[in-house]
């Protein structure tokens, strides 16, 4: 572990933390525009988080230590996962950081704790949220792994860092296979971050909610941590999608100016993706829970198609 | 000389039994009888050089070789233990009125007589003489089966006699064939096994096949081979348990012994392939029928009897392979089976005293709370059952494994069928034991009979046998192996 890598870690983590809430607000803004409303300010999420951090925490009498530690662990797991996806600058990987499977399982770690938190208070909503979250995660997992396997196959590496380097090095990275993969990755992004049509992040207190159900009993800084974790997760997955499909601007050698420029470029690309997500969400209705597997089958279809193209063509 | 001694001892015993008045005295006499026989046999064995070149005693009618001595030793030991066991068992039969007071002298007399006849049968060189003794064993043992006052016993004994005797007559026809064969080959007819073995290669194959097939019928009936096995479950289930043990552990050996001797002759002629096919066919069918019959069995003693049938089938298959190794392990299996089966019947007898239904011998035993009421018997059945299935620390494990190995070198298909059948048999035995022994009294159940106070005399043989089985399963001393190899060599394999 060298100094360069440590610097990368710190910068990447801080950058992700800094950018993530912005995208959340942006999506809301876009959705509001498409609905003809003005919508919140792009910095509203920052304000919400700041407020939550200052508020008092309320625990249920039923809750155990899980509720107290899980939010920190969840965020930590997502942040470590964020290290696997360089936003702007790709250093040489150290000690297997960047392994795509480990990346996936860090999300699983976060999800595990989140689901336990949902169950901890004994609230029926929490239980329902956890149950649905885990079920959906289970069903999407084959798709995810196939997509990742396809990525590993296309880029001939298991490491996200290497993938980025290859992708950044090629002049025209956008190939038909990559487009198909991008569609699959997009669906994974939607599912993993609990957006419409999977889940409606705006609705509390509806029987359709999944992610919000799990964190319903949280309050104060615990809630803030969970919300932040969700935001970071969105950013990380977006970064994966963006840097694989549209890697231009990604730097592989360290220079302050280069990194800053790349970061800025990423910010814009991310904002565009958030906009797309916003539009996508507004054009969709929330799906019935048990119809969801068919959506995943679609993603599975795309990734399998990729594989077939790659393998047989 | 030895035979004379044996005969005199038996006569003395019968005389003493006639003189004695109580069960205890008669029992002591029969235990002594068994012990003396065991000691004499042990002495014979000790006097035998291993390996010996020829036979120890030989005249026109009797001889002693390792195989005979081995069988006699098993018989004497089982008889001694069974006599110890019978002491308590007969007492209990008397007190429950199942055995009439007047019959007990007959019981012990027959007991001593049966031992003598069996020993003489094993020592007979002349096959016709052997046949006659084998017939006599049927008679004596059938009387022991029938000795209980119940009609079912008479019924079972009659079946035993009719099936065994009619089949044995056909055996005799087989021996006539054999005699004629030897006469036409040697000029002078002989039924002496030693002579026959020496000249076996000169005999024509068709005649040997015919005589073997006919001899086989009779002794298959004696040893409970399908389809002549039908008498066996009923006789073994109905007989007093001490007698069941003897029937299963000693008398079945007589049949296998005769078949083995015949195969030793046929082995030297061209008729062996046909005989092997026939033996495998009968053996597999026997195992199959026994295994399938064990599955729905509700009566413990019948179950054990079917297990005997199954083991006889296995021995038959082993004999069919007829390689030295196979014969070696068949002989080992004979020993293993005898001791295990005796322990099973002894334990079953204790349970039978505890649980037997007063209404019918065929009715399922109402076994309940067995571990609290009769722990020793329960463990006896459990360990004995596992041993007969062939789990480790039981000699059956090795004999079964190696017999099957030998079968495997001949035909994988037969091996597979055998394994499946043995599995079914094990499953049947296991199913019965598990379901019966785990039954405990529920509050609503009808009260049990009085707990049966098992006399020490009935416990000791079980313990001795269990220890013996496990010891045999662990230690295979070199002397034992040399001894068994010697038997195989003497049989000419």
């Amino acid at each position, binding site marked *: *572990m060298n100094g360069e890598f440590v610097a990368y870690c710190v910068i990447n*983590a801080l950058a992700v933390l800094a950018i993530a809430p912005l995208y959340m607000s942006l999506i809301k803004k876009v959705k509001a525009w498409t609905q003809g409303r003005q919508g919140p300010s792009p910095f509203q999420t920052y304000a919400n988080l700041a407020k939550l951090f200052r508020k*008092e925490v309320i625990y*249920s009498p*039923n809750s155990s230590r899980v509720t107290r530690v899980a939010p920190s662990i969840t*965020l*930590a797991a997502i942040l*470590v996962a964020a290290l696997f996806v360089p936003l702007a600058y790709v250093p040489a990987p150290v*000690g*297997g950081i960047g*392994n795509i*499977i*480990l990346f996936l399982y860090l999300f699983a*770690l976060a999800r595990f704790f989140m689901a336990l938190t949902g*169950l901890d*208070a*004994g*609230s*029926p909503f929490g*239980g329902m949220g*956890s*149950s*649905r979250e*885990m079920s959906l995660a*289970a069903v*999407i997992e*084959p798709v*995810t792994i*196939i997509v*990742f396997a396809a990525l590993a196959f296309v880029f001939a590496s*298991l490491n996200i860092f290497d993938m980025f380097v290859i992708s950044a090095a090629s002049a025209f990275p956008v190939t038909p296979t990559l487009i198909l993969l991008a569609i699959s990755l997009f669906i994974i992004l939607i599912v993993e971050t609990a957006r419409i049509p999977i889940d409606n992040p705006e609705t509390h207190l509806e029987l359709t909610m999944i992610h919000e159900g799990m964190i319903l009993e949280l309050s104060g800084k615990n809630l803030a941590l969970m919300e932040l974790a969700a935001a970071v997760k969105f950013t990380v997955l977006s970064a994966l999608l963006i840097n694989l499909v549209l890697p231009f601007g990604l730097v592989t050698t360290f220079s302050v100016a280069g990194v800053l420029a790349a970061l800025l470029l990423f910010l814009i690309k991310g904002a565009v993706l958030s906009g797309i997500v916003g539009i996508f969400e507004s054009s969709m209705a929330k799906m019935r829970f*048990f119809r969801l597997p068919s959506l995943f089958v679609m993603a*599975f279809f795309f990734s*399998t198609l990729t594989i077939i193209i790659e393998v*047989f063509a | 000389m030895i035979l004379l001694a044996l005969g005199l001892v038996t006569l003395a015993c019968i005389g003493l039994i006639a003189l004695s008045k109580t069960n205890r005295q008669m029992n002591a006499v029969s235990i002594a009888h068994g012990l003396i026989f065991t000691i004499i046999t042990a002495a014979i064995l000790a006097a035998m050089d291993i390996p010996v070149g020829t036979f120890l005693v030989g005249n026109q009618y009797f001889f002693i070789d390792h195989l005979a001595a081995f069988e006699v030793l098993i018989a004497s030991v089982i008889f001694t233990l069974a006599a110890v066991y019978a002491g308590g068992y007969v007492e209990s039969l008397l007190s429950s009125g199942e055995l009439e007071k007047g019959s007990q002298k007959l019981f012990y007399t027959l007991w001593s007589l049966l031992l003598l006849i069996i020993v003489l049968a094993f020592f007979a060189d002349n096959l016709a003489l052997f046949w006659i003794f084998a017939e006599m064993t049927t008679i004596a043992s059938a009387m022991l089966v029938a000795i209980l006052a119940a009609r079912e016993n008479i019924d079972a004994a*009659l079946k035993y006699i*009719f*099936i065994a005797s009619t089949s044995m007559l*056909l055996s005799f026809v087989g021996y006539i064939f054999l005699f004629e064969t030897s006469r036409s080959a040697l000029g002078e007819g002989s039924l002496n096994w030693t002579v026959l073995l020496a000249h076996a290669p000169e005999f024509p194959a068709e005649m040997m*096949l*015919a005589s073997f097939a006919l001899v086989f*019928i009779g002794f298959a009936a004696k040893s409970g081979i399908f389809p*002549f096995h*039908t008498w066996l479950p009923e006789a073994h289930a109905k007989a007093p348990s001490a007698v069941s043990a003897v029937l299963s552990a000693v008398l079945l050996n007589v049949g296998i012994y005769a078949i083995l001797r015949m195969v030793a002759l046929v082995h030297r002629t061209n008729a062996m392939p046909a005989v092997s096919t026939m033996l495998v066919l009968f053996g597999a069918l026997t195992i199959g*029928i026994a295994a*399938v*019959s064990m*599955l*729905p069995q509700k009566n413990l003693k019948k179950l054990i009897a079917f297990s005997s049938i199954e083991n006889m089938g296995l021995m038959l298959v082993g004999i069919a392979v007829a390689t030295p190794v196979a014969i070696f392990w068949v002989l080992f299996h004979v020993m293993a089976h005898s001791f295990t089966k005796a322990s099973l019947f002894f334990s079953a007898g204790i349970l039978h005293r505890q649980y037997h239904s007063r209404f019918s011998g065929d009715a399922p035993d109402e076994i309940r709370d067995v571990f609290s009421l009769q722990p020793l018997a329960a463990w006896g059945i459990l360990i004995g059952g596992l041993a007969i299935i062939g*789990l480790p620390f039981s000699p059956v494990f090795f004999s079964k*494994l190696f017999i099957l*190995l030998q079968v*495997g070198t001949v035909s*994988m298909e037969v091996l597979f069928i055998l*394994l499946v059948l043995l*599995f*079914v048999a094990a499953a049947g035995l296991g199913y019965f034991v598990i*379901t019966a022994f*785990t039954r405990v009294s529920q509050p609503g159940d009808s009260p049990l009979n009085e707990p049966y106070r098992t006399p020490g005399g009935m416990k000791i043989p079980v313990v001795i046998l269990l220890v013996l089985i496990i010891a045999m399963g662990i230690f*295979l001393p070199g002397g034992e192996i040399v001894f068994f190899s010697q038997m195989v060599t003497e049989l000419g394999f």
Partner: protein
Amino acid sequence: MVPFLLSAALLVLVIGILAPLAAAGRDMRSVRILSLACTALSSLALAAASLIVLLDGDPVTIFLCQPTPAIGIVFSLDRLAAFFTLLIAGISGCVAVYSVEYFDHLSGNGRRNVLCGAMNLFILAMVLVVASATTVSFVFFWELMAASSFFLVMYEYANGETRRAGVFYFIMTQLSTLFVFLGIIALFAGTGSFAISPIILSSSPLILPAFLALFTGFSIKAGIIPFHKWLPYAHPASPSPISALMSGVMLKVAVYGLIRFLLDVFAPEFWWGVLILAAGTVSAVLGIIYALKEHDIKGMLACSSIENVGIIFIGIGLSVILNALNLPALATLSLLGALFHSLNHALFKSLLFLSSGSVVHATHTRDIEHMGGLARRMPYTSALFFIGAAAIAALPPLNGFVSELMIFVAMFSSIPLVDPFVKVLLFVTLALFALTSALSAACFVKAFGSVFLALPRSPESEDATEVSSLMIVGPAILAAGCIILGIFSFQIFSLAGFNLPLPDMFLVGVLLCGTTVLVYGFLYFTTPHAHRVSPTWGCGASAQKPGSEYTGFGFSEPIVTIFSSVYRTKKKNVRHFYDAKECLFSDGIAGIDLIKVFEEYLYIPIAKAACRTSAAIARFQNGCLDTYLLYVFVTVVAIIVFLGWSA
């Protein structure tokens, strides 16, 4: 050194077997402690011996007794055997520590001594199976293992459930023995030797039957679907330390058998690997799907064992495939993954069984719908269970993750190197494997959530108290093992001489802990500490009742619905009304019936067919002498005809 340690360990174990059996008549705690101390002591010795062999790498051959030329009882400890010996020793030591107090809580007086003795016998048998160098001694101890474990399963024999478990276990065990017998006999017939050594005449027609028979035999013992049915019966029925040993260790002995014969005896072909892979995949997916619907905590763990054995088989199958395709490095990786997963599964499954044993002891029920809220009542046990659950759900940086990762990496890396057909195969397996892994996370969220979190759902659970210290120490060692093996996996493999393309979990662990501490610390110092306790929002109901919680059943309902075609779910909804027009609802029953597919379509039909056959055949034994004599007559005539025809 190694022979001395081994013989000492075995000797001590024999003492541990004989001492309690000798005292079977009386209930003596001291004898039990002595016996369990023997177990622990011999575990230490065995572990030391196997570690030496593992590090040295030189196989050690011990004890030589040769009663007949045919039966050679030779033991040898090479690295593979040493690895599994280490596994057995490690788990049984911890189980022994746990059992000291657990056995005191069992009923059955003197039988508990027998239980101790039988447990030691079981351990001894397992060690010797692994150490066997000939097929004969392999089968011998294999059978001994089966017999002793049967006694262990039957401990609470008076229980109806145990009886059924016993029947299942006995029959499946015998079936397994049948195939192992068949396999080694076929091997013997093919090669003429009992040694577990490579076959020279690989063209022998008996090689294939031998492999298939051995594979089936080991699959039955390992609980591979469709031979898995005994697991969910036998594991719940036996006392928890026994379940831990059976699930954690005995299944691994079957895995050992498979690996040993594949590596040392056969030259596996490509499609053998496909077979193993397919069996493993099916077991993994179905195993965890079945686990999700179990309410019985130990039944659930048993089903999850099916899944994990499936994963191990996936690793083995993959390794065989890759070897056949001439990719030795990846094959090694995948085999190491399978081996490591065996060890890991042994650790966390025993941990889970032991801590669930504590839970069952505290709550007197195995039904997770009657538990709940135990995290605050049994803090240590819940922490231990949590570590087990996290490890089995393959969460980084614990050990369960590392072994799954190894198999994943082997698959990912081999995909570009193989031909299209194998690619497709690998993709399918990969997808199902990922599904398995995610479902297992769901399963253990459900388990931990229903058992330890929220409100207690029964009075027993309400009154539960923490168990005594040794019942925590035993599992705690296992939990430590889970963490250490996970975090230091990279270093351990380097030490063993394997440089694998794996992430350094130590680094990941440090990062995770560091970040957590940073986040927590940052908030601790920057935000206010004010907090208060207030009731969970109950949708307007004044007081929250346990009945309103999400049950374990409810938790798995979405998955049950999604996979209804696998479960063959039948939803039942019976409604009764007060009036004829069905307006006023009075009461009704709603439920979901899960058909036990294999039981209903495979096991029961076979059993019924067997019963019918035996009933039909029993009719021939009709008790009538005339019939019997007729049989004799017909046979005699047949023999005479045969004689005339053949001559």
